[in-house]
């Protein structure tokens, strides 16, 4: 019999101890992923709608997306939409309801530290984004998309963009009521999709409007993606700085204001 077997007559004899940190993180990430994939509404916003936007805007010439092949303009924008959906909307709604149902409170009594929960949520977001980008890239390729720059240059952009949106999503989830988070996260998603520089390149807009929009994280992420994938022009500093500022603001405020109960 191994030492871990409980004494036969005393199955509950205390033997406390936390699992190793890597195991706890892996378990929490795996659970969060499973619960997310089980949630139809979240899949709608993270995958179905981005695919519809990709196919719709690239095939139907209703929106002026400027010069260049439509699919090459639209695809980086839809990548950015995918990040917005997962790192902001989906994360905010899920976390808001976990807070409301006392899940965050209850997990606080397990050996999983709070930073571990945040790490698991970040890992979940990154895994989902990877899946989204693969699927969307597959669909885009079948529509004739031909990216130029290097995928590697996307990595810093994706990480900083994800940090920015996650910080803002967690800030919302940790301060508003769950219903308010649900409404606001969806509304912000819709507003940024419509007017946040995701579909229509800033270069197609009047200079004043473009300058205003360029400080939005959605526009910054999209412009960065277009610079790399459409123009092959390497990692652009401007959007990266904008995203980094949002990340600092969002994560910083969330870490102070987030209420676990």
């Amino acid at each position, binding site marked *: 019999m191994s030492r871990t077997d409980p004494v036969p007559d005393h199955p*509950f004899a*205390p033997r*406390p101890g*936390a699992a190793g940190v890597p195991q706890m993180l892996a378990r929490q990430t795996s659970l969060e992923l499973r619960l997310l994939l089980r949630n139809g509404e979240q899949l709608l916003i993270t995958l179905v709608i981005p695919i519809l936007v990709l196919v719709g805007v690239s095939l139907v010439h209703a929106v002026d997306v400027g010069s260049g092949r439509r699919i090459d303009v639209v695809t980086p924008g839809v990548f950015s939409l995918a990040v917005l959906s997962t790192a902001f909307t989906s994360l905010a709604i899920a976390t808001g309801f976990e807070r409301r*149902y*006392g899940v965050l*409170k209850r997990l606080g009594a397990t050996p999983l530290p709070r930073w571990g929960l945040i790490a698991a949520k970040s890992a979940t977001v990154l895994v989902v984004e990877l899946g989204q980008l693969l699927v969307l890239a597959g669909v885009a390729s079948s529509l004739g998309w031909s990216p130029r720059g290097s995928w590697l240059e996307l990595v810093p952009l994706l990480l900083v963009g994800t940090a920015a949106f996650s910080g803002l999503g967690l800030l919302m989830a940790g301060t508003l009521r769950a219903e308010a988070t649900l409404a606001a996260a969806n509304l912000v998603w819709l507003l940024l999709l419509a007017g946040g520089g995701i579909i229509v390149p800033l270069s197609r807009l009047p200079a004043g409007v473009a300058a205003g929009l360029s400080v939005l994280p959605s526009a910054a992420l999209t412009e960065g993606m277009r610079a790399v994938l459409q123009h092959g022009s390497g990692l652009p500093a401007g959007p990266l700085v904008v995203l980094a500022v949002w990340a600092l603001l969002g994560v910083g405020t969330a870490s102070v204001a987030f209420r676990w109960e």
Partner: protein
Amino acid sequence: MRPAYTRSVPAPAVEVIDLVKRYGDLVAVDGLSFEVPAATVTAVLGPNGAGKTSTVECCEGYRRPDRGSVRVLGLDPRRDGHRLRPRVGVMLQQGGIYPTVRAVEMLRHVAGLHAHPLDVDMLVERLGLGATGRTPFRRLSGGQQQRLSLALAVVGRPELVFLDEPTAGLDPQARRATWDLIAQLRTDGVTVVLTTHYLEEAERLADRVLVVDHGRVIAAGSPAELTHREGQGALRFRAPAGLDLASLRAALPDAVTVAESSSGGYEVRGALDPHLVAAVTTWCATHGVMPEGLTLARRSLEDVFLELTGRELR
């Protein structure tokens, strides 16, 4: 470092001194003090709003006491939370579980956050959660939700568990399974602190009962001590109406009262012990009286609560 439960001189598992918890103007916990000896079951008994949850959540580190001190396994639950978490199991009064998770999935998950968890299948079987299958948590019955919540509190093999109303709303069979599990925890050396407003639960499970009302301890002791205090009890029997009560009274110890509470229904009140019973039956034998339906009624915790507060518990 050796774990606390093998120490030769057992320290109290929980020590609360002069705890005060306020919400705005409301004083929910009003100078509460108690100790929980290791490897015992302590029931915090009181009506809704008595301050049970506030007290327990101060011990769990969720709420910050406004005054007083709380030590759990010798540590401060707010400052040393990270050291306590693996050692302390928690069952919240409600909530705490993902609405879409499956029962066994959640149990395996929390088991996996611990180094030496219980056998999940054993726990599932013991608590009758085997039939929950793929049903999401939000669709489980209230009883199943409660039992899962209890299972999550113990799956990490803690030294100490806090159970906030573990049987509220359970059907008798599920309540029985929960009681059996709590009794087994005690046998196996786990310290249990539970809250309840069921007297029967406190009487049956607890080594010590704290009767709490308006945030204060109004009585504390073992169920036997509480119900025997002042030796209250009643011996009742039926016999022909109009017995000579003065004669019966004279045959019994001083502090005892005798009454014919209804026609032919007799009640002897006082410190119930074998001598009193013998004295009553001897008097009956001497006077040729058959005491029909002779019963002994100990004071219940219900009576204690009623006496102390002038109110019913529920």
